[in-house]
């Protein structure tokens, strides 16, 4: 078990270094181009040259990456080329917004997809067919379309929830809940539809196993069979689905944050990448990778705990 954890950690560190260096190399392709973009259209060549030096873009790529990496280890991710704002300062307000949406959606996805997946598998018949139809529909319709429909319905027509914006919990818990409700719903519909279908398949597969027939033959209650045995043995594929859902949600958050004008990390990454704000992009990439690696790590940990066979891999 310990060896597995150490291996996972080492693999995570290697991925972290690889991805950050690759991103850095891609972003730092052109110092004068970045400096000109910072200064604007009417900047003169001599001013651009001075800006290149001022931003430290005249140094070798490896030196710049090493400085960034050592800075990152001490918590200093540099400052935005464009706004002068510290990257950690920007992330401190952006990450909670994205995490709130993604984590709430993830928890609700876990609960609802298990409920819907098990219901569909166990009940069968028209219940299963309806849920499968809804699942296909939910998966097929893109999140941003769902978001627009939700805004039109709940914000414009009914006026019960805000169309845009984010309220921090420090200002108002109710305001915070209202501001994340529609974004969460927009992401939730697609993720539940997808995860519930996977759970349904896993539960159906488990229900067909010999030991389930044996348990039923021994007169053990259906509720006990489902919740103590079937669900536990279907959890492996489910955890994988939820792990993948996290990555999908992080990607989907970029669009959702735009539609709802939420000041999240996805929006920051998007706008920073468009203007080649390298320090900001690196900051958002770093946080995203860390989230992905942590989720992956926890998923592996849970799978290992549930399935002893996994410990030996």
């Amino acid at each position, binding site marked *: 078990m310990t060896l597995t954890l150490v291996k996972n950690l080492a693999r995570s560190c290697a991925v972290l270094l690889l991805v950050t260096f690759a991103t850095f190399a891609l972003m730092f*392709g*052109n110092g*004068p*181009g*970045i400096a*000109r*973009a*910072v*200064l*604007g*259209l*009417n*900047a*003169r060549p001599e*001013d651009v040259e001075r800006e290149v030096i001022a931003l430290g873009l005249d140094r070798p790529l490896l030196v710049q990456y090493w400085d960034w990496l050592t800075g990152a280890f001490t918590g200093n991710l540099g400052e*935005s080329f*464009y*706004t*002068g*704002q510290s990257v950690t300062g*920007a992330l401190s*307000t*952006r990450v909670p917004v994205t995490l709130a949406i993604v984590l709430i959606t993830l928890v*609700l996805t876990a*609960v*609802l997809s298990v*409920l*819907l997946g*098990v*219901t569909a598998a*166990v*009940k069968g018949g028209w219940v299963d067919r309806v*849920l499968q139809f809804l699942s296909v529909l939910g998966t097929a319709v893109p999140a941003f379309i769902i978001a*627009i429909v939700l*805004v039109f319905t709940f*914000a*414009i027509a009914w*006026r*019960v*929830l*805000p*169309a*845009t*914006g984010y*309220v*921090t919990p420090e200002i108002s818990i*109710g*305001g915070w*809940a*209202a*501001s994340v*409700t529609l974004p969460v*719903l927009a992401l939730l519909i697609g993720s539940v539809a997808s995860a519930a279908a996977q759970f349904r398949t896993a539960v159906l597969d488990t229900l067909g196993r010999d030991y389930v027939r044996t348990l039923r033959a021994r007169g053990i209650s259906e509720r006990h069979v489902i919740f103590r045995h079937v669900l536990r043995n279907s959890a492996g594929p489910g955890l994988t689905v939820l792990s993948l859902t996290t990555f999908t949600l992080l990607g989907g958050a970029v669009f959702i944050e*735009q*539609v*709802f*004008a939420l*000041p999240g990390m996805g929006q920051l990454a998007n*706008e920073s990448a468009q203007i*080649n704000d390298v320090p900001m992009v690196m900051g958002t990439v770093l946080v995203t990778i860390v989230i992905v690696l942590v989720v992956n790590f926890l998923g592996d940990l849970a799978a290992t705990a549930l399935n002893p066979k996994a410990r030996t891999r």
Partner: protein
Amino acid sequence: MLRRTTSAMAGLAVTATLLAGCTGETASDAGSGGKAVKDTLTLGMNADIPGWDPSNQPGYQGWAGEAVWDTLIKCDAYGKAEADIADTWEISADSTSFTAHIREGQKFSDGTAVDSAAVAATFQYSTSHGGAQGDYKGIKIETPDPQNITISWPEPQPMIVSRICPVKITTKALLDSGKVNDTPIGSGPYVLDTAGTTRGSVYAFTKNDNHWNAAGYPYKKLVIKVIESETAAVSALKTKQIDGNLISAQSYNEVTGSGLDVTTMQGVTTRLLLTDHLGKKIPALGDLKVRQAINMVFDRDAMVKSLYQGHGKPSYQIFRPGSDAYLDGLADPYPFDVDKAKALMAEAGFADGFSIELPTMAGQNHETLMPYVTQQLGLLNITVKQVPLSGANAIGDLLSGKYPVVLWQLGNFGQSLQDIDVVVRDTGYWNLSHQPDATVDAAWQKILTGDEAQKKAAQQEINQYVVDQAWFAPMVNPDGFYAHSPDVTIDKVSDIEALTPKLRDFK
């Protein structure tokens, strides 16, 4: 099980509804106050501000900068000087120096006095910071006393007013501290409310009641929200979360149908820039007949109707109506006539056409324009290869001269001298091939030395010359739209670029 799930989802919706009811941030009560109260003006902007360095502030959607900083003087929509920190001013006869008297009793937000030392420090700072450093190279500043200042250039500056207007005045102490991006210090009509501000998302301001022109800014509070998506901005407008936002033609009907007002502006001209006048890269472009033929294959009326859904006007010159260079009553010099255009190409010896590369970039409306332009040029056997530009190299590539022909919706300033300087003179960054021209140079000399009437005549002479020489193929002056609540009044747009209302225009 299904029943429980349904109940859970219904519960979620009910909870959300109840929560919304107690937030104070609901659609019904967020946003501005009524017309009579003039409490809060909430504006959306589609890109974040580039920090708080006063030397690096945008004119486009620059409300945050206009809120916190004053300038020595302001420019009106046509580049004429208006009072601000300075209540009187004088420009030397040779346009090399600007002498101003700073009104007394003004204070910065840190409580220090607005004086000539602060103005001098800020102008000096502009010589080495921001994107317009070149405009202030070699300036000399004299401050005989705290209320008077003279700023001089080594060469005549026909656009001396435009050089003075953008410089946002702050304190020497802040500039020396190296922390210009942290919190702005200015003497502007509003003061940044740091508690209500989240950088990159929401900027809140409270009114500076001691501002010399406090009556010109009727709102007690100003809130600016960063909303990148137009879909989100329109939703926010419709639910009164914001009072105003720029919109595109695609949202026009939806916005007006929702009872919102729209202020229309015409600040750009869609045009082809044919900058290789000497035919050094593309020999055919060195022939006037070819450039005239290119002008003749665009049906400007049809473009307005089809490509801009009627939101615009046909354009036959690149200068803004009302500006000094604009030629009133100029008839279409190159009416739509494909046969005549083909004949001109044949006369020039280019009946078989040639190839050009046209750079394209996201957000420039090229998706709509490029197919039409490509098709029309194809009638002259001119083959268009589109070259997408993006990333860090985009601006450098665009201005490098690599592409002597460009299709762009370029702004036209209210002060036409700026257009001449930027797109007509060989030194201008939008004159991509930078080829010298004796006629333009001679007219520019008249601008440098002449009186006001002579300057205006020289500008019109340049305009007529570039029309005759077909240096551009102007097509359409498309409308720009600022959507706003009926509770907000915008009687005029003071922006010299006519791209957005200025903060002082919101009443």
